[in-house]
């Protein structure tokens, strides 16, 4: 039970953090963003504890089931963002990341406390590996898109010569581009490994690596899109606006597809 309390506390602090970030955008002061960053750190710690407690009580890796999946997704985003913020001076990026985290956490809380046990089929380290790696990869892509969105905003402000404090508040183009790059180049190998682990496991359970399942197709699509983006970056030398724009487009397309998939398709890749 304490896991749920911790989760709710973390959610509440994430919400406050998002509000404080919004305020910092409004008043355009770095000071408030600094407070928001600390709030996010606190929320992350409590969130981590909620995972630990859930892992303890259920004995199953806490990344299975809608609630846990989403919660884990939000957790990776928060952790990765904070880690990136240490590396680059991009404090205000949190104003874009934190609402997304909140949204995901709110959706996650709908299913709160639902499934505690998991079906036997999902016990095993291969599943855990598959789920965690894939989710981490996808969360990093989400972060890359946040940075991309911010890049586009800053780019258009600079292009249109919108003199004012918003330009000053937003991070520099190069830092945003770097975050986009780091997230892509870390997320892609993780997702690749996640997909590999999944297909190995599918071979064991379903007898074949590939099922033409909507969720599998979606994942492959995501993998392909981001692989393409990374290729363009590394080989063709895409940088700046184009890379930012495309990572945002890919993200929006994938999110739309997820919603469609949930609404209109049955999947065998759903267990709880």
């Amino acid at each position: 039970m304490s896991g749920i309390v911790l989760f709710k506390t973390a959610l509440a602090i994430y919400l406050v953090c998002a509000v404080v970030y919004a305020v910092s955008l409004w008043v355009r002061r770095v000071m408030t963003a600094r407070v928001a960053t600390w709030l996010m750190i606190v929320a992350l710690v409590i969130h981590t504890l909620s995972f630990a407690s859930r892992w303890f009580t259920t004995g199953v890796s806490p990344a299975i089931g809608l609630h846990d999946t989403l919660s884990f997704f939000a957790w990776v985003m928060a952790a990765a963002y904070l880690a990136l913020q240490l590396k680059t001076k991009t404090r205000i990026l949190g104003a874009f990341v934190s609402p997304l985290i909140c949204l995901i956490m709110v959706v996650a809380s709908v299913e709160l406390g639902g499934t505690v046990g998991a079906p036997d089929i999902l016990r095993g380290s291969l599943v855990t590996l598959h789920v965690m790696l894939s989710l981490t990869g996808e969360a990093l892509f989400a972060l890359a898109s946040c940075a991309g969105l911010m890049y586009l905003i800053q780019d258009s402000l600079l292009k249109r010569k919108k003199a004012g404090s918003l330009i000053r508040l937003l991070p520099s183009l190069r830092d945003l581009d770097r975050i986009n790059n780091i997230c892509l180049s870390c997320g892609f190998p993780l997702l690749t490994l996640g997909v590999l682990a999944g297909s190995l496991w599918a071979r064991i359970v379903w007898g074949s690596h590939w099922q033409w399942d909507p969720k599998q197709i979606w994942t492959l699509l995501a993998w392909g899109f981001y692989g393409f983006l990374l290729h363009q970056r590394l080989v063709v030398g895409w940088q700046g606006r184009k890379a930012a724009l495309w990572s945002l487009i890919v993200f929006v397309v994938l999110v739309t597809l997820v919603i469609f998939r949930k609404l209109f398709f049955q999947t065998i890749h759903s267990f709880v």
Partner: protein
Amino acid sequence: MRLFLIGMSHKTAPLEMRERLQLLCGEGNQPLAELMRLAGVLEALYLATCNRVEILACTEDDEQAVEALKSFIYRQGNLSIAEMEKCLYVHQDLEAVRHLFRVTSSLDSMVMGEPQILGQMKEAYRMAVESRATGVLLNRISHHAFQVAKRVRTETGIAGNAVSVSYAAVELAKKIFGDLKKKSILLIGAGEMSELAARHLLRQGVGSIRIANRTYARAEAMAAEFQGIPVAFDRFPEVLPEVDIVIASTGAPGYILNAEMVSAALKRRNRLLFLIDIAVPRDIDPAAGEIDNVYLYNIDHLQDVVDANREGRRVEAMKAEEIIAEEVGAFERWFNALEVVPTIVALREKVEGIVKGELERSAAWLGKLDEEERKRVEILAASIVNKILHEPMTGLKEESRDKDAFPFVAAVRRLFRL
């Protein structure tokens, strides 16, 4: 004890007047010693910058001291009193504190938010301390003023934004490239403006600098000065692919850098390019600014940034005034307590002395009582005194919290002959 601030600044006095006062009070001719010799002056602080001359003095409670201070300035300025009177301002007590806080926080500066004044103020304070011209009051005020300046600096954006064209260019460059180390600049035209902008950029640690100029000798001379590389004027498009920032400021009648040159330069290397066109007529074709990853700013755009920043500073200044009002309030509370606390202590000591004296005088008959009874009499006396003193003392403390406690304190002191 009273506080006076007397001085003149760029807002009240013309340059010649400030000059004269500064020369006479300036280096070597330390006015602090002389100030301290004035009748009634207890503590003094003397601040002189290119825009202001100010004397802050803590004096005994009479008009004589102000007159002495004024005549000191007239003497120093060696000018007619009528002329000087127009330029001088005199602030008293809390107004003096407020003025000092505003000056230290750079709200009263010519360029609002400039950082030098805090250093100058600290230096002035150091001089005063060295000359043993400061005491409890001025020490406290000075330290408080430094804190206020720091608060204003961190809590408002008053010093945050560039108010000159070349600083605006540096700020924009930072918003594009993050940090400017390892970036390289190309100057097209080695004029005064481009030199200034280049200097600012170099101070930010820009990696290398190339200079193209129609007169090659000038390019060479400037390259020598900046440790840059001179480039023949008609060959500057060739180095374009290697640079990140271009500053154009030639006297050419038409565009010398067009969109085709820029896209050709970007084709070979995918990256960001910041073009600064400070020439009139313009050197860079505006179409170049339409290209992806290219940011083109001309002199008007930069001026717009500066104007917006100026406006921003004005808004921030209002926040700063609020902070200062708050801090003056805090100082007032401390200042009042400064008077009140010793008064309360003195009052208590006096009354306790009376009780003790009376008990001793009655020692003869008190001696007839036993230990227990004697204790009771002592307690009785003490509690009567405490009851009587309780209300005046709490009243005194409360009074000091928000209002001017001086009349109250003075009355208590006179009534009890403290």
